[in-house]
């Protein structure tokens, strides 16, 4: 599980679910079969999506839900996904 910056268990859980929903909404290719996408066996797709988000927003790509990443996740935004859909 991508490590979350030091937080109380409740905050940790809330942030994790918030991040999971965000990544599912904006960084998950939906609809139709996923063509040409090879995911390394056992690769953690959540870490991969976090890295995609961090790359998109120009953050340090760590694959971790650090403070900067959570700040972006909490900002009001457009509902159109950031990855090709």
């Amino acid at each position, binding site marked *: 599980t991508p490590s979350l910056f030091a937080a109380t268990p409740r905050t940790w859980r809330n942030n994790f679910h918030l991040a999971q929903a965000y990544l599912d909404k904006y960084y998950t290719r939906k609809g139709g079969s996923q063509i040409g996408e090879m995911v390394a066996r056992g690769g953690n797709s959540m870490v991969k999506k976090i890295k995609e988000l961090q790359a998109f927003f120009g953050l340090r790509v760590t694959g971790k839900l650090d403070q900067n990443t959570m700040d972006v996740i909490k900002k*009001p*935004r*457009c509902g*159109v996904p*950031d990855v*090709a859909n």
Partner: protein
Amino acid sequence: YRLFPGEPKWKKNTLTYRVAKYTSSMTPFEVDKAIEMALRAWSSAVPLSFVRVNAGEADIMISFETGDHGDSYPFDGPRGTLAHAFAPGEGLGGDTHFDNAEKWTMGTNGFNLFTVAAHEFGHALGLAHSTDPSALMYPTYKYQNPFGFRLPKDDVKGIQALYGPRKPFLGKPHMPHIPPHKPSIPDLCDSSSSFDAVTMLGKELLFFRDRIVWRRQAHLPTGVQPSTITSSFPQLMSNVDAAYEVADRGTAYFFKGPHYWITRGFQMLGSPRTIYDFGFPRYVQRIDAAVYLKEPQKTLFFVGDEYYSYDERKRKMEKDYPKSIEEEFSGVNGQIDAAMELNGYIYFFSGPKAYKYDTEKEDVVSVMKSNSWIGC
């Protein structure tokens, strides 16, 4: 910038749009205005034009929706997701939905509809999200002032990659050469005209009409200076509806349609706000005249044949208003175009006449020509 996979775009350059469902947090007039300005932001960069329809199917159907609204992208309540739009195409293509759970606004006290709509229409025209933080198509919300908005460079490049640039008109003008538009100074000395608004501002008296403002010393009828409104108040441009000054606060208020601006002297303080900040009912869309009464520290707002009283100390509209102008200010005939208080008298401007009203006697004590105030 980024385009959608397959680079979908509209194959025609005139697109229809329709607001099918409005929000409760703004008047329909405001929503229409914000949508129109947001579309214009894009048509200024590419050879596209937008035609509004009020019934049936349009290319871009616009609506304010709540929660799950049938397109498999449910909204999530306040904050979070603000809106979404679909890439160009038949049916759902181009359609744009706003989350009605948000507080939408023309200003900054909520999510600015112009800002979000301009972003969403980028999607509706074929742009995906940009990774450039200065771009309008960046995914997260950042307020843009609708007045004087210019499409950022990244967005111009993206949209022109799809539709090419809006060509400057190079052909010979079909019309006979029209001289550059100079705001003609309306001849106010003909007796048929009046003022749009009048106010004190510091030691000066300002008289507004169309695109012109006349400035004069309050106690000197000579030396009247006409100039364009834009030269003193660029944001106001023309047709100011009402204005008043609260001298002891050093601020003045200028009204146009459902918006008002606050100034300190000639200095604008921030972006336009909506008149509903004062507590007007939503059906009031504009103010005819306003005057601040120093003694009671109250501002009277005139709308049609009624008037409201706003308590400047408590910053709230007084109860039991609106009241009938005719009942309270007998002797002042016709709609009130402008009003001001000077030396304890209220001056009402209605068409070519100005009524000097004595609040003690509660009666009109003299009537003069409106334009006598600017030396006619």
